[in-house]
């Protein structure tokens, strides 16, 4: 593979990735056992990852959810700084749709009952 002189882009590119000092862990959470009360809403969560650019994540939140730039930026910063953020909530089917749309944009999204 050839890569003629792309090093020059490094400084600009490295200024923007959304960071992931803590990758999502696959752990079973005991409190999730049998609580299936129907009134508990479902939520879509976006997890921090080290590859997606911060500006891109903000852009995707605007595109997928129609959020304002301010709201999208705040959610992106929550993901970046807290490791995750709830980006939408509602019926399970809607959250599965949201997750699939976020996956189509390459974001690391999951849904769960709140």
């Amino acid at each position, binding site marked *: 593979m050839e890569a003629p002189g792309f090093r*020059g882009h490094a400084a600009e590119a*490295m200024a923007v990735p959304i960071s992931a*000092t803590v990758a999502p862990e696959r752990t*079973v959470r005991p409190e999730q056992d049998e609580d299936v009360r129907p009134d508990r809403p479902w939520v879509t969560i976006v997890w921090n990852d080290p590859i997606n650019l911060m*500006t*891109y994540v903000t*852009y995707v939140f605007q595109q997928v959810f129609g959020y304002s730039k301010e709201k999208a930026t705040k959610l992106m910063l929550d993901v970046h700084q807290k490791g995750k953020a709830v980006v939408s909530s509602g019926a399970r089917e809607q959250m599965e749709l949201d997750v*699939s749309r976020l996956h189509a944009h390459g974001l690391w999204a999951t849904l*769960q009952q709140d």
Partner: protein
Amino acid sequence: MARPFRTSRGRLELRLESAEAQLLEQLCGDLLERLGEVDDRSTLDGDPVLGRLFPDGYRDDPAAADELRSLIQSDLREAKVSSATTVLATLAGLPDNGRASLSPEQAAAWLATLNDLRLALGTLLDITDDDDPRFDRSGQGDADPSGQGDPDAADDYDEVAMSVYLFLGWLQSNLVDALD
């Protein structure tokens, strides 16, 4: 250096050097090849790149994750294939000056594919921190396609791959700014 993407009179303009276009063409071909391997869940197990391109929708419920995957994975794969194919078509149609106008649909395909390429390459490079992209891989080299027991070859590969990764980040960042 000229910006690869810019908005001019309401239209998104692309401008690439020929070497950049050739590199992207190769990367898109590689991506399409990997996407062609995706048919069911079994192909993703143990494959970090495909696992990142097609993540689980549930973290703590494998059965629900599998069920959702069965519902959306095919469409997700088709969308990725379509985007990469669109990018290849743009590249194939580039005139000698490397310039083209992109429709909103083409721009969306470029954005999605640049992101897929970065996810794939970043996963291969085991990117874990935005401050410290490592040119010197510590450890096993488990995701190193060129690693045949020759440490120098592995280092060269990583250095090239990291350069390409940064190039893709620069392109994508530029495209987001142009669309914003």
